């Protein structure tokens, strides 16, 4: 029952919506769906931290299993998250999002190479009196 994250090559090479990873300057509660393009955040559901593969359950101690069940990264800043475009194409995607400024970074498909963590601009920049 282990995750088959290594079998990414098995995913068909589908023609994707031509999109460019957006800079933080252009996102406005929009999420760049790799299949549909920029869509309103309200069309998506949140799916917690990305990149946590389903482990081999029987290889884990109770403590390790409990950690897998309940513990997720909760950084102040950029976090790679899973989202699903439930009111659009119905597909899951991964997305960089800043938990402090709520800025949306680049999106990428599961089992594809993760883009670099965006550089966080200072939200209060230029706000000195």
């Amino acid at each position, binding site marked *: *029952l282990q995750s088959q994250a290594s079998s990414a090559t098995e995913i068909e090479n589908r023609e994707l919506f031509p999109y460019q990873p957006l800079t933080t300057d252009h996102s406005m509660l929009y999420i760049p769906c790799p299949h549909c393009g920029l869509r309103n955040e309200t069309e998506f559901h949140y799916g917690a931290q990305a990149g946590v593969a389903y482990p081999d359950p*029987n290889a884990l101690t109770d403590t390790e299993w409990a950690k897998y069940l309940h513990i997720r990264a909760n950084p102040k800043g950029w976090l790679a998250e899973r989202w699903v475009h439930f009111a659009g194409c119905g597909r899951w995607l991964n997305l960089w999002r800043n938990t402090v400024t709520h800025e949306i970074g680049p999106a990428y498909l*599961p089992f594809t190479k993760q883009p670099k963590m965006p550089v966080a601009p200072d939200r209060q920049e*230029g706000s000195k009196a």
Partner: protein
Amino acid sequence: MSEVSFSFDDKIYKGLASEPMAAALLRAGLLSITTSTYHARPRGVIGLGVEEPNALVQLVSGTQESMLPATVIEVTNGLAARSLTGVGALPEIPDEARYDKTNRYVDTLIIGAGLAGLAAADEHLRAGREVLLIDDQSGPGGHLRHLGLELPASMKKVITHGNLTYLPRCTAIGLYDQNYVVAIERRSDHLGNSAPSNRARIRVWHIRAERIVLAPGAFQRPLIFANNDRPGIMLSHAAATYADVHGVRIFKRAVVATVDNQGYRDALRLHVAGVQVQGIYDARATAKGPSVDAASAAGIPIRFRATVLDTASNVEGTLHDVTIQDLDTTETFQTAADLLAISGGWTPVVDLATHIGIKPMWSEKHAAFLVAHSNERLRAAGMLAGDFGDDDDPLVFFGPALDPEQSRHAYIDLQRDSTVYDLRRAVGAGLSNIEHIKRYTTIGTAHDQGKTSGMLTIGALCQLNGYTQDGKSGLSPAKIGTLSFRPPYVPIPFAALAGREREFLSDPIRITSLHQWHVEAGAIFEDVGQWKRPWYFPKPGERVEDAVRRECVAAREGVAVMDASTLGKIDIQGPDAAVFLDRIYTNMFSTLPEGQCRYGVMCKIDGIVFDDGVTTRLGKNHFLMTTTTGGAARVLAWLEEWLQTEWPHLKVYCTSVTEHISTIALVGPRSRELLREVVTDIDLSKEAFPFMHSRTGTINGIPVRIARISFSGELAFEINVAWAYARHIWELLWKLGRPYGLTAYGTETMHVLRAEKGYIIVGQDTDGTQTPYDLNMSWIVSKKKEFIGKRSFQMPYLKATGRSQLVGLLPESVDEVIPEGAYITVLNAQPDEHGKTQHTGWVTSSYYSPAISRAFALALVADGLKRIGEVVAVPVGKKVLRATICDSVLVDKENIRRDS
């Protein structure tokens, strides 16, 4: 402007179309508009717009909206309003007005059509951008309008530019992350009776902008002194504007108290309007600037280091005289006045900026909190950014020192009747944080959300903490910081947010293809999620319990029929479909032969039951899964999540077919007999077509798939047919079923029948903490394979004693149906040291069973499976019922009827 007449407190007033009601009332001499909420003191208009804390009215015409400031209502013919004491009432009539919403994407959004906003608009238009300019006033110009000045020609060009959309009467109510703004546009109230009936009263704008310029301007601030709430005491800018622009001629003698040059400008305007200005009392030691010179030249007496300490009223409660205090000698004197115009400095509107967490910064020079935020996408402009003009030099001063008696009537929040006394009490109680003080005193919590009182609170707190006017010692406003504001910036009707999504449009209504038949049969419906399902089918004169008993008896003794089309149905296909289902369900599906059905339970990874249903294998690689009515979307999303994010190599495709297939459940010992009359191409015998088998055939030439699935425990056949043919099949059965006494039944009977058999409803008999073991379903947990949730069953907390387990419950009194949700305690339970009695479980489903002629229930009871036979107590109101814990299956435990 045309003259209109409107009524206020049943008296007719004249006004000019689209002027504020406050101006018309003042012109007619109405100074006291209302009495205050808690202290019952007379109150009048003090401001010019949404900052107004006093002059609240309730409309008695049109929508009968409540709690509107008279300063923002534009008068129209036939408008009727009455005064309020700060407590509004929702109208009893439904709001028939139309509300709508729209979305807009623009290059630049400018909030505020004052000079700063117009200048910003010009700049962005020149850069070739499309501009949306919104402003809460009825026309552009901002401050210029208060001065009665025309827009300069250059600014008129901006307003009429082809790339600019200007929305008057449009208030930004919220600024959200990533340049998202929600605004409300008032579109028809100002037109009164001449408003087109199809025009939305309020339009909610959802605006996303590449760039935003915040140019909301500023509110003038009052000062704190004793009895600072009398009618006749106004903000100087408001007083001057009402006199100068709106022709209010009721004031004879005015006193101006100021901390900046604005007081001088307003004194001059009052002077020009014919008011005798007794004197300008300036808290500053000296003042200079064109306005000071002009006031001096006009012969208005000016006195520095003096301010107002107290006031007195005449018999009507309006202002009679003013006590002035010399700030150096503390000597006082009185002067008669019917207008006290206050200029306590400016408070820029920082609200929107704080919505997204921007922290305004205190500027001693401006005596105000400013927002200097400026980047490519969001910029503050105008007074918000500190552009106060040259002729201004405000002092950080909030009022004179007050003794305890004076502090009792020195108001900070006029709407809440909160005083300096209250503030001192809060500080005396140990509160120092401004947000705590707000909650303790309720300052800033009224409809105006502290637009005038917020800054006064900060000022009064500074004074209490030894802040000196030179700013050199004590607690300064910079240390306290502003309150953080939350949307909406102004109160808005819920109706505007609801828009057209009201009543039947508020949520989609889902109906089955048999719905019209149910309606014609007189069914009473219940909502199950978005579905309308027949609850029961009463015959004339029947109560619900009569109908349900009749329906139950028909299903157990004859034949009955139910519309089960709302069950979630997911078509699952692909070479890996069987492997996939093995992982999803706790029990095995790869071993299920084609043409057979199996009940399955699925858990989340934490081992908790998530949904259940029967899945039929239609082919080697083809399954039809059914889910609970409410769980269909959740389950499909769950399957997709695993397929897409963990097992993309599995070739499986899931499709919702809920609304493609209608399901008619034919239930009862005589169901086979009746079905034989319409089905000739399937052998319906017990031997050829056993329980949990599925067959395809035809009824009247229509392809059907029939499965021996039973949610009632009776012999039953579920007829699956294309959605559009269901009514034909149903009516055919109905016609042929007449001699059998065929009875239609609804969800209530379905519940009784399933509960008698101990069949659970996930979400009713579970509360999100039960494993299959807790539900006495260890038989459904496979030991041979891995599945989602299996590992969690090994966790100590799921194996511990004391877990709630599903059991039956038989009340001692056979007719007493225990209310669902009732708690269960041990017999003669004693309260603990806290006076609380610990429960040992609760009732999840409870009905009267005609089959066993008594009331019964299902319950979740701690270690319940080990406590069969124990008598427990069920406190219901003042009564304590007794009941015996029993097995959850009460009818046909051997399944003889089901398998017959």
